[in-house]
C-alpha cells in the first residue's frame, strides 16, 4: 500500500511516545497533586470516621454513590463505540475505538473505587468476594450490591482485555522501533507477537467474540447498578423503568466524555489528520439521539409518577421540580436536553467546538441527574416525620474533584506510553473495501485530510 503514508502515520501516532514536552510533566504533576489530595482525604475519612462526610440520617447515600453511578455510566462509551460499531462494521470508528476503550477501562476502575470509599468499614470490602472463609459464610446473592460486584468485575475484566488485545500488535511495533529497556518492556507487553496470518486471524476472532460478549455485559452492568435503587422500597426509586433509563443515561454520558477526550487529544497531540470533523459530527449526532432518548425516559417516568398521584412519590416529584432541589433539577434539564438539542440539531453548529460545549453540558447534567435520583428520594421517604436534608462537606467535594483529576491523569499517562489511535487498525482501514455487499467503486475513506 502507500508506504510514505504509512510511514507518516506511524511516526505521527508514535510521536507522543517518543517525545515529551514540559507541558506533559506539568500536567502530570498538577493532576498527581490533586489525586494525592483525594487519597489523603480518603485516608482522613477512614481514620476519623465516616462522620466527617455529609451523610446523615436518613440520607445515607449521597455524593459517593452519585459518583459511583456517574463513572460506571461514563464507562459505557467504549462498549458502544468500540464493540457496537465494530460489529456493524462502521468504517469511521477506526481512529476512535482505542480512545473510547481507554475511557471505559479507567472509568470502571475509578467507579469501582466508590463502593469501597463509601463503606463504613472499607477494610472489610473483600467480604463481598465469594471465598470459603473461616467464618463459613458466603455473600448474600440476593443483594444488588453483590450483583454489582460480579457485574463490575466481569465488565472490568472484559473491558481491560478488549482494550489490551488490539494493543498487542502496536506494542510489537513500538518494540521493534525501540532499543534498550524500552525494547524489553514493550517486548514483554507484546507477548512475543510476530504477525503471522494465524496470529492475526486468532486476534480478530477473539476481538469478534469479545465484541459480541461485552455488549450484553455492559447493558447488564448499568442495569444492575440501577437495581441498587429499584430493589428498595423508596419513593421514586422503586420503578421498573430504571434499568433501561440508566443504560440510556450511561451511553449518553459516555459519548459526551468521549467527545471531550477526543477533542483534547486532537488538540494536544496534533491529531488533526486522524480525528476529523466527520468523527465529531457522527458522535454529535449520536449524542443528540441519546439526549432525545434521555428526555423520553425522564418524561415517561415523571408522567407515570404524576398520574399515579401516590402521596410519597408526589412529595419527591414536587421537591425536585418545585421545591428545594428545583434549581438543580432545571439546570439538569437545560444541560441534558435544551443545550444539546439547540447545538446538535443544526449542522452548522455541529462543529468540534459545538460538540464539546454540548458534551460539557451533558456531563454536568448527568452528574446532577444521578444526584437528583439518589438524594431527594432518601430525604423524603414514607414517614414525613423523618425527612431530612443533605449538605455535602469538604471531604466529599475533594474526593469528587480528585476522581476527575485521576481520570485525566490516567488518560494522559496512557497516551504517553501507548499509541492512542490503533495503528494497525487504521492501516487496515486503508485497504480496498472488502465487505459482504461491497459497492462497486467505493474509494476507501482517506486517512489524511490535507486541511486540518
Amino acid at each position: 500500500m502507500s508506504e510514505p503514508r504509512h510511514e507518516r502515520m506511524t511516526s505521527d501516532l508514535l510521536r507522543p511516545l517518543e517525545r515529551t514536552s514540559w507541558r506533559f510533566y506539568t500536567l502530570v504533576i498538577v493532576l498527581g497533586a490533586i489525586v494525592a489530595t483525594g487519597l489523603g482525604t480518603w485516608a482522613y475519612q477512614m481514620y476519623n470516621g465516616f462522620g466527617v462526610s455529609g451523610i446523615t440520617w436518613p440520607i445515607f447515600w449521597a455524593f459517593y454513590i452519585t459518583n459511583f453511578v456517574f463513572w460506571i455510566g461514563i464507562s459505557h462509551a467504549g462498549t458502544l463505540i468500540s464493540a457496537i460499531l465494530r460489529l456493524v462494521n462502521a468504517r469511521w470508528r477506526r481512529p476512535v475505538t482505542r480512545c473510547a476503550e481507554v475511557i471505559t477501562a479507567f472509568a470502571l476502575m475509578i467507579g469501582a473505587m466508590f463502593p469501597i470509599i463509601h463503606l463504613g468499614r472499607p477494610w472489610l470490602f473483600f467480604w463481598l468476594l465469594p471465598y470459603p472463609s473461616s467464618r463459613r459464610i458466603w455473600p448474600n446473592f440476593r443483594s444488588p450490591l453483590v450483583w454489582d460486584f460480579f457485574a463490575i468485575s466481569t465488565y472490568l475484566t472484559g473491558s481491560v482485555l478488549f482494550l489490551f488485545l488490539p494493543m498487542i500488535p502496536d506494542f510489537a511495533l513500538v518494540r521493534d522501533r525501540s532499543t534498550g529497556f524500552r525494547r524489553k518492556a514493550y517486548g514483554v507487553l507484546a507477548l512475543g507477537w510476530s504477525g503471522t496470518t494465524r496470529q492475526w486471524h486468532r486476534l480478530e476472532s477473539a476481538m469478534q467474540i469479545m465484541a459480541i460478549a461485552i455488549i450484553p455485559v455492559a447493558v447488564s452492568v448499568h442495569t444492575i447498578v440501577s437495581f441498587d435503587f429499584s430493589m428498595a422500597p423508596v419513593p421514586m426509586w422503586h420503578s421498573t423503568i430504571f434499568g433501561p433509563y440508566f443504560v440510556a443515561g450511561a451511553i449518553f454520558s459516555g459519548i459526551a466524555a468521549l467527545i471531550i477526550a477526543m477533542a483534547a487529544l486532537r488538540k494536544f497531540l496534533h491529531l488533526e489528520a486522524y480525528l476529523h470533523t466527520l468523527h465529531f459530527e457522527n458522535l454529535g449526532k449520536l449524542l443528540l439521539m441519546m439526549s432525545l432518548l434521555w428526555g423520553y425516559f425522564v418524561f415517561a417516568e415523571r408522567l407515570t409518577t404524576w398520574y399515579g398521584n401516590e402521596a410519597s412519590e408526589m412529595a419527591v416529584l414536587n421537591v425536585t421540580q418545585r421545591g428545594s432541589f428545583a434549581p438543580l433539577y432545571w439546570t439538569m434539564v437545560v444541560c441534558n436536553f435544551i443545550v444539546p438539542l439547540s447545538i446538535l440539531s443544526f449542522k452548522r453548529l455541529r462543529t468540534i467546538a459545538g460538540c464539546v460545549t454540548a458534551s460539557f453540558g451533558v456531563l454536568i447534567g448527568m452528574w446532577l441527574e444521578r444526584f437528583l435520583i439518589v438524594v431527594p428520594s432518601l430525604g423524603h421517604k414514607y414517614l414525613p416525620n423523618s425527612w431530612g436534608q443533605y449538605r455535602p462537606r469538604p471531604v466529599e467535594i475533594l474526593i469528587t474533584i480528585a476522581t476527575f483529576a485521576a481520570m485525566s491523569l490516567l488518560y494522559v499517562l496512557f497516551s504517553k506510553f501507548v499509541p492512542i489511535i490503533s495503528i494497525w487498525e487504521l492501516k487496515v482501514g486503508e485497504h480496498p473495501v472488502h465487505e459482504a455487499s461491497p459497492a462497486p467503486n467505493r474509494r476507501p475513506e482517506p486517512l489524511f485530510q490535507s486541511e486540518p
Partner: protein
Amino acid sequence: MAVYALFPTPDAAQRAVNKLRSSGVANRDIVVISSEPYEEYEFSHRDKHTWMFWIAGAGGVLGFLFGTFLTSFTERAWPIPTGGMPIVAWWPNIVVMFELTFLGAILSAVATLVVSAGLGRRRPNLYDPEVIDGQILVGVPRSSVSADIVKRALAAIEGARLKTI
C-alpha cells in the same frame, strides 16, 4: 535453516505463496508475517479454521454452570432467611449466573487466543523487524523440500529480498 523473503506488496506476497505451493512446499509450512492483517488475500485464509467460537461457547456454559452451583450451593450451605425470600432464590441467582456466563466466554476466548497464537512464548521462530515498515515476510522455517528449491521459488517473484537464518 529457515529461508524467507521480504515483499513490498501483498500481491507479490500472494504470488510468492502460490509459487511455493507449486514448488511442493506444504501449505502449513509456509509462514506469512505482516504488520497488518490482509483479509482480502487468500494467504490469510489458510489459517481461518478455528475452534475459538465453540470454545468460547463452552466457556460460557461452564460459567453458567459455575454460577448456578455457586449461588445455590452457598445459599444452601448455611441457609439464612432474609426478607421472606426463599433460601435458594432463583431470580437474584440468575443475575450472577448471567455475569459468570459471559465471564466464562470472554476468558476462554482470550485463553484460546493466547494458546493458539503462541503468545507469551519467548522467541518467535521466524521474524524480521523490517516487517514493521510495511514489508511482508513469506518464508519456510522448515520443510521437506530442499532450501535451494525454496530460494529459487521466492527469488522468482520480483521485489523479493531473500534472507536466511
